[in-house]
């Protein structure tokens, strides 16, 4: 292990950017992040009304609807992939565990963190945590606690990579031993807060258009978080193969096609289940008559164009082993998730009001700024830690030993 001073110097040197600063991504993202920071300064010095279009009728806007509700759905890949690898023992997905967990963890940090920007009284955010005022009958209480605990679980899942980066051998072994526990805990929490995000809207009955309101909305949110998360994994993998080609291990390259097609299969299956739930809700809730209205057409666009079509694409992708079809399916699915979450939280919310909520450009800039900030941190970590690349040699040498010991004992 390095000395403390050595470690410090190492950390300082790692803060420096790697690669060119003037990439197209940087040129777009930096001005937006700066603008977002300015807008947030105004928001905190002049109140929410200075930059948002929120009203007494529509108290949750783009920051909650897109960053929190949609962003967290996309983070669902982490619990699905860790479940596959550590609980079901599907080792072929092993090479994408770290990138997925990292993505999930950062999504929670930034998107659940975006909640703070939207809170009117953020200095009181500690209240539901320290227990001087537990609102235990609140779905939001549950969601907030699960966000927090899940962030910890996801960090534990990712932490061996940090230890490898810092060269902390003993710590790595301890952290690695926690992985299964963290995964099991994390999957449980994810099931509950993905559905919990849907349950937030249960009491908005009568405010949300009946085509999007359902007593089964927690189940809809949970099931759709599976294919939302996996579609992001597929999409993200495509980008990574271009952007981080040099950082990618051979294992990662070798398994890429199989992984994409395997995930496509899971997407297709869960989307089928989701469609079934939606049709059930439509028929059982006697809402089919609403399909002829303008909102009904919009509903059909979402369900047919962005669930049924990508489901078919995924199915065909598996059949023809076509990566291209799988990736198209993933992109359509992601758009569908954005549509669905915004339809529930914004478009279908108070659909009868004469003055509809439309986000201000400021709200849009902040939303983009949060997303870019997450990508910046993601990129910083990928460029330094063994996320896509192989673990250092010492890790693999060590990994062989306990297995041998266990076999002897058995």
């Amino acid at each position, binding site marked *: 292990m390095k000395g403390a001073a050595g470690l410090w110097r190492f950390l300082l040197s790692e803060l420096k950017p790697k690669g060119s600063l003037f990439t197209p991504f940087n040129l777009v993202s930096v001005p937006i992040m700066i603008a977002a920071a300015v807008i947030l300064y105004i928001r905190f*010095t*002049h*109140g929410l*009304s200075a930059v948002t279009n*929120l*009203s*007494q*009728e529509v108290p*949750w806007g783009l920051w909650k609807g897109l960053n929190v509700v949609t962003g967290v759905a996309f983070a669902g890949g982490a619990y699905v992939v860790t479940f596959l690898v550590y*609980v079901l*023992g599907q*080792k072929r997905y092993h*090479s994408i565990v*770290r990138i997925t*967990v990292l993505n999930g963890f950062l999504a929670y940090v930034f998107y659940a963190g975006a909640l703070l920007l*939207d809170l*009117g*009284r*953020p200095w009181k955010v500690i*209240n539901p945590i320290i227990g001087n*005022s537990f*609102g*235990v*009958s609140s*779905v939001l*209480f*549950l969601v907030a606690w699960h966000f927090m*605990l899940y962030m910890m679980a996801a960090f534990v*899942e990712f932490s*061996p990579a940090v230890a490898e980066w810092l060269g902390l051998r003993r710590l790595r*072994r*301890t952290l*690695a*031993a*926690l*992985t*299964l*526990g963290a995964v099991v*805990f994390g*999957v449980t929490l994810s*099931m*509950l807060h993905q559905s919990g995000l849907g349950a*937030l809207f*249960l*009491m*908005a*009955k*009568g*405010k949300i258009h009946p085509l999007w309101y359902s007593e089964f909305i927690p189940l809809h949110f949970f099931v759709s978080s599976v294919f939302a998360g996996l579609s992001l994994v597929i999409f993200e993998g495509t980008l990574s193969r271009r952007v981080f080609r040099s950082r990618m*291990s051979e*294992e990662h390259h070798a398994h890429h096609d199989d992984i994409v097609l395997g995930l496509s299969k899971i997407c297709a299956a869960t989307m089928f289940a989701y469609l079934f739930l939606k049709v059930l809700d439509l028929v059982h809730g006697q809402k089919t008559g609403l399909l002829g209205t303008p909102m009904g057409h919009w509903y059909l666009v979402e369900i047919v164009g962005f669930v049924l079509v990508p489901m078919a694409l995924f199915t065909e992708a598996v059949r023809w082993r076509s990566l291209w079809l799988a990736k198209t399916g993933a992109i359509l699915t992601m758009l569908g998730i954005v549509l669905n979450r915004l339809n529930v939280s914004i478009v279908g919310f108070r659909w009868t009001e004469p003055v509809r909520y439309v986000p201000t450009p400021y709200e849009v800039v902040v939303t983009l700024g949060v997303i870019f900030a997450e990508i910046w941190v993601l990129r910083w970590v990928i460029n330094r830690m*063994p*996320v*896509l*690349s192989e*673990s250092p040699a010492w*890790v693999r040498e060590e*990994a062989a030993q306990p297995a041998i*010991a*266990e076999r002897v004992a058995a």
Partner: protein
Amino acid sequence: MNRRGFLKTLGLAGATVACPRMSGAAEPESGVEPYGILVDTTLCAGCNSCTYACAEANGLPEPEDPEAVTKPTTDQWTAVKTWKTSKGDVSVKRQCMHCVSPACHSACLTSALDKTAEGPVVWREDKCMGCRFCMISCPFDGPKFEYSSTKPRIRKCVMCADRLRKGGEPACVENCPEGALTFGKRGDLLRTAHKRIADQPDKYVDHIYGEREVGGTSWLYLAGVPFEELGFPTDVGEKPYPELTASFLYSVPMVLTLAPALMLGVARATHRDEDETAGEAANDGAANGGEEERS
């Protein structure tokens, strides 16, 4: 840390997260019979005396043009709107309904919105973090939020909770010149209202708004025309709103206990297989990279 240690932690965390009090405090536990206010819209003249009295009693800015304000706002907790109905103009005072089982209280993750035993639903400044989930959940749009403030508060009628505690009446009731507002125990008010309907069946529709809506509200309304004509939400149902989330919350402890057990079992089963075949199971630290030599 081993599996057992982990399970212990899980148990502790589960106990804190998984045992919510399920319903949103529907029944008064103290045995105090809650108060209510009966509004007889057939008597209301729309004079806005209640609006002025409310502002004075609660330290709100004096209403400049209360007739222009048709919905309660952050600065004007009571609003009288005149509706064109099948029986001519009818004025209706609206404010927070002070539900018997308030959605806002059950929604609030810090218990900032508190249902008092006497009936009023009050907001507690030291608790609230400004998430506005109460506003999403309230079927009557009761809570209003100060968007333009850097220290925003939730503002709404508090049914003069302080005056009630001192044995007084809400300011609006005290200052109504037409006797359209009656203060009393909710049970008594319901009896009064039913009697009025029975005595003058031609004057009133046979419906007390708030008797059963959303499980009952502290504010009760009598009217001569159907309540749809007066802008009352008639699709809110008779189930208390907190029950809409109750079944979800009930399932939480179950998932928290069953899912980990199931998953650990499955993991154990699949990993034992691997011990015999691949021999690489114990160290699960997600070491990146295959077993092959690096080039």
